[in-house]
């Protein structure tokens, strides 16, 4: 095991230092401790080493050399390996240390990243105050965003192709946002609803608009996010739920205050099913007053549930 670690360090140094890509034979002649003499064992061992380096994020590029009996050759392009100049102050490192301890991320990527930037400076905090779950898929999509690589994935049984502009965490869910190539329109997708893998196209395949603000692609509220023909709804809310609704919609939504403390709120509806769920969450403490079509929609919906079943 010390031998293997030693060879991995030496292999990294050699691949980084070389001016031209080296074949496995050439590496076997150079790198110590030596790879096995037996060719199959040598290849196996080298593949394992290569895999370990790649797992750490070390970018090994593969080139084909030698015309006819073509062979694979390997090197590490220094520009791909080295962290660009960053120079964080100790105060900044300490602030990041606080961040990775105050925000629980599930996984040690935060600390591993910090080690590359100069390690843990200052004091972290003992107890996390927030949890942010980063799944491998979110990291893949973030990678596609930085590489400007198009992504393909399946979403609600439909294949989507997206020029990803950013990733956004809101309401506890990750979204990938960008330009949907099939719809030719901006779209946001919930990452946990992507089925299976995400495929990345080649890097630098598109140029995102300047001054992107990914957050703006995810609408503030499902209520205001939809493609139904917009209508204005008027909802009567009992006094007991009035404060709660005002908190949600803002005081400007209040159109009328009644003597008994009940309020009438006005809100634009562009997503009827989201609106229906929202009204029904208030149970019998709210009622759609207008327009008649939305009122009728609620009545029909509830009527179907009554007809659908259950003992009285």
């Amino acid at each position, binding site marked *: *095991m010390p031998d*293997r*670690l*030693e060879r991995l*360090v*030496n292999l*990294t*140094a050699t691949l*980084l230092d070389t001016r031209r890509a080296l074949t496995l034979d050439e590496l076997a002649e*150079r790198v110590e401790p030596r790879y096995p003499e037996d060719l199959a064992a040598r290849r196996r061992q080298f593949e394992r080493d290569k895999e370990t380096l790649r797992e*750490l*994020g070390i970018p090994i590029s593969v080139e084909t050399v030698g015309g006819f009996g073509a062979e694979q050759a390997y090197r590490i392009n220094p520009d791909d*390996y*080295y*962290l660009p100049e960053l120079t964080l*102050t100790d105060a*900044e490192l*300490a*602030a*990041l240390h606080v*961040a*990775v301890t105050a*925000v629980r*991320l599930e*996984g040690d*990527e935060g600390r*591993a990243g910090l*080690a*590359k*930037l100069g*390690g843990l400076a200052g004091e972290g905090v003992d107890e996390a*105050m*927030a*949890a*942010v779950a*980063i799944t491998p898929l979110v990291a893949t999509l973030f990678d596609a*965003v*930085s590489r400007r690589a198009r992504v393909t994935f399946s979403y609600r049984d439909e294949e989507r192709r997206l020029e990803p502009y*950013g990733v956004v*965490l809101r309401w*506890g*869910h990750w979204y990938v946002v960008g330009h949907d190539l099939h719809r030719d329109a901006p779209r946001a997708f919930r990452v946990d609803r992507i089925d299976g893998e995400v495929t990345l196209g080649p890097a630098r395949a598109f140029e995102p608009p300047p001054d992107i603000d*990914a957050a703006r692609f*995810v609408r503030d509220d499902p209520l205001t996010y939809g493609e139904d023909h917009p209508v204005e709804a008027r909802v009567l809310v009992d006094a007991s739920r009035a404060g*709660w609704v005002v*908190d949600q919609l803002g005081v400007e939504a209040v159109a009328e205050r009644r003597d008994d403390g009940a309020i009438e709120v006005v809100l634009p509806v562009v997503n009827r099913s989201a609106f229906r769920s929202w009204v*029904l*969450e208030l*149970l*019998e*403490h709210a009622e759609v007053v207008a327009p008649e079509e939305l009122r009728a929609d*609620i*009545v029909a919906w*509830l009527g179907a*549930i*009554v007809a*659908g*079943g*259950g*003992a009285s």
Partner: protein
Amino acid sequence: MSPRPLVGPRLRRVLALVPYVLAHPGVTLAELAERFEVSEAELERDLELLPLCGLPPYTADRLIDVWIVDGTVQIRLAEYFERPLRLTPAEGLALLAAGRALLSVPGSDAHGPLATALDKLDGVLDARGRLAVDVGGSDHLEELQRAAAETERLEIDYYSFARDEMTTRTVDPWRVFHAFGAWYLATWCHRADAERLFRVDRVRGVRRTGEHFELPVGGGDAADLVYRPRPEDPRVTLRVAPDAVWVVESYPHESAEKLGDGSWRVVLAVSEAAWLERLLLSLGDEATVEGPAAARGVAAEAARRILARYEPSAR
């Protein structure tokens, strides 16, 4: 698992600490150990390995030079490790996400070292404007955080969404914590005489009492935050249409089974009736209660109650 240490983490550490020592010649072993989260003994093992490493043909002038004198470290002849390895996408994302989350908490310094560090990272990762992490604020968040920090007992007005009722309670605010897209207040609730968790956005009013409490050991541990079904909570079995699979994704369930027609059979623990009513009302015909019998009429009963408001005589 075999007890042998994994080679990956050690290699990762070596590749991070060599550039650090090159940039900070004479750094002490103690400081290095702390920065890179290793014992000094382990650190010395890492450093002992380095003089065996270098470039072919591994002659003295090609091997890494390590000096440890009076507890300080210097490294030479390792120019190729002068700068650290690039951040992986996952590492960059983790650092930015943690930093952005912390920065979005009300009361954090928008121009302090965290903000400048994130700005530099944004530049290097070409991530400016491309990563947004919003843990949002809530009306009473700062007040509750202050009370938790000062261990001051509070009186709160709380809207229980699951039970659909408004209550006033005296609580010992233990911790304020963000998870799953919402802020929570972990407390000892004197009304329930038990540990209780409250959603900060459903706190409708906060009053100081001037009394103080003592934080119990392990009180309000973050791991307890998620709703965990209690054994005594009733179980309800739902049949859910393929389009409503979000039910399976969104709620902790006892079991979920995909059926031949693409629908799901899911068993949920239901602690409060209003919660189940809302779920069924919003699902409509996309869900049917399979059992127990007592739960079968829940949706229809709730629908009747609401419909009563819509009857002509009710207006």
